[in-house]
């Protein structure tokens, strides 16, 4: 019971950290503090949270344009994520990257990407390193339903399958790629079924249920660490904000659909389940929530107080530089 309580509150804390950071970033975007694009992860927090809860710093995560949640769940400090979007020196990419180029290899965040697809191949490469060096580390790729229709998906899964690599492919199926419905873009909208084509396990899970994601990811990662090869994990979920901040709900998806998914808020679902299972109740969650809110406010302050980088920093690191 104690262990269960710890797990539930730990998962809740990560989800709240993502939610409140994203909401802060959305506000900051409106206020002009974010200089470029900003794709939030609101509504999908359970996926990164449930998967990354199993990872150590030696495991590598490869992510997408919608990567703030993966960065936070993998352990990048909130202030460094925010500062990066604000273009500051404190940012995890020192202001070079912004929202779509978050890097913190020190904690195993091997990057988010402005290009859809490459994370699938790079996680496969991490799996290869692990196999060669026998480190037991796992490579994890997070990507959208849209990315699953890119050639990189087929090539990455097949490579990982034939070499039996320790890789977890996490498809966050939020039903739309920008404004294009998955039902338009794919012959079969159930991505997990494609695993059969590579002879690897394909698992479908409710991506708004963090405990379900946690359990499914745990099985897949155990399998990977045991040298039994990759798994494709499809998490059915939904992005409840617009594709990128500043865009409008232009009518490509029904308002009732958005409302129905908002009612399935992953933070709320976890509270309800914990109460049903008599693990804990609102007071415990509220306490976590407000402690996270305090951290987010402090992180935002730290981020906006960080200076902008010097112009000359733009010219460094194009090639290898000997570390001082």
């Amino acid at each position, binding site marked *: 019971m104690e262990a269960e309580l710890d797990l539930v509150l730990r998962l809740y804390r990560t989800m709240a950290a993502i939610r409140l950071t994203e909401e802060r970033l959305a506000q900051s975007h409106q206020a002009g503090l974010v200089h470029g694009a900003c794709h939030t992860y609101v509504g999908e927090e359970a996926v990164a949270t449930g998967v990354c809860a199993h990872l150590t710093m030696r495991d590598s995560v490869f992510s997408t344009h919608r990567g703030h949640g993966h960065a936070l769940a993998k352990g990048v400090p909130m202030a460094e994520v925010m500062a990066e979007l604000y*273009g500051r020196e404190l940012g995890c990419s020192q*202001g070079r*990257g*912004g929202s779509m180029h978050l890097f913190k290899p020190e904690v195993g965040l091997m990057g988010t990407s*402005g290009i859809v697809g490459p994370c699938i191949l790079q996680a496969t490469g991490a799996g290869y390193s692990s196999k060669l060096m026998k480190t037991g580390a796992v490579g994890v790729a997070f990507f959208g339903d*849209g990315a699953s229709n890119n050639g990189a998906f087929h090539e990455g899964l097949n490579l990982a399958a034939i070499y039996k690599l320790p890789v977890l492919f996490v498809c966050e199926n939020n039903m739309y790629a920008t404004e294009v419905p998955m039902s338009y873009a794919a012959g079969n909208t159930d991505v997990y079924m494609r695993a059969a084509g590579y002879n690897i396990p394909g698992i479908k899970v409710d991506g708004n249920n963090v405990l379900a994601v946690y359990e499914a990811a745990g099985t897949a990662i155990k399998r990977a660490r045991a040298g039994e090869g990759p798994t494709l994990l499809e998490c059915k979920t939904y992005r409840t904000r617009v594709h990128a901040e500043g865009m409008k709900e232009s009518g*490509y998806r029904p308002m009732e659909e958005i409302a129905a998914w908002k009612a399935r808020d992953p933070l709320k679902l976890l509270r309800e389940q914990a109460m049903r299972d008599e693990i804990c109740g609102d007071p415990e969650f509220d306490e976590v929530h407000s402690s996270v809110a305090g951290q987010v406010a402090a992180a935002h302050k730290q981020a906006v107080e960080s200076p902008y*980088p*010097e*112009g000359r920093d733009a010219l460094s690191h194009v090639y290898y530089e000997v570390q001082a």
Partner: protein
Amino acid sequence: MKELTYTAAAREALTEEMARDATIFVMGEGIGKRGGNFNTTAGLFDLYGGVRLCDTPITERGFIGLAVGAAMTGTRPVIDFMFVDFILDGMGEIMNQMAKMQYMSSGRLTMPVVLRGCIGIGGASATHHSGNYYAMFANVPGLRVVVPTTPADAKGLFKTALRGYDPVLFLEHKSLLNTKGPVPEEDVAIPFGVARIAREGHSVTVVALTVMVNRVLQVADTLEKEGISVEVIDPRTVSPLDTDTICASIKKTGRALVVDEAFAPCGIGAEIAARVMETAFDELDAPVRRLNGAFVPTPYSPPLESVIVPSNDAIATAIRDLVRE
């Protein structure tokens, strides 16, 4: 003449040519009902329907390869990439197939494909949404590479692209998309390989590419007051590249500077300098100079982003220095 934005002018060319030629179809992400991320196809879905305005999954290599096959079998694909950076996933299809197909088939097959999208640094787009790839494409035999600066050129050059038989890269700098300018009412197709003299002058020739043309024009106004008369040339297409117009200008001025946001190494400025040496060496009173964006991927943060692009001050200094040489 009417006033149009750059994007509206290019869209007008597409709309008119699609009406004229039923074999033209557009493919890309969000170019159907949504009308394109940059409004490149706004309104066209209602006119021409979903087969001619075809939304795709995120499969760039796939639909570039599809376009090659379609062009070989009688249709005219226009692929709209929003950001040209996304084209890179399909480079094998472009360089090995599309560009070489007419040659491989001894001219029996044609390759009327237009690959269009935004290029350029600005707006904290960061390094996956800001490349200027024209020099790289200009290095490939079989491709045409078009880099219009004004709305009128966007329309006229797009028409030529849509009427020709070669694969064309039609590259639109993102800072130009909402700029306005006069566009002729009549049907004008501007030939490739003919530079535009954007401003006449006699002290120095400045060849500028895409967004840098507008920057150089601003600087030229300032320098006029100092007694420096700048002739500004916009090549408009970099493959083919009109060096005759550039050399004729140098005959008058004796000095040339190339201003380009794209990288210097193996770039368009290097090509221009080499060709000027080959054909107009005796006209030069000073070496050809170049001013380029820094040879780095594009950083995000505004103070980093701004230092890697030639500024008005840097352009003015480069011109003053060259005139004094």
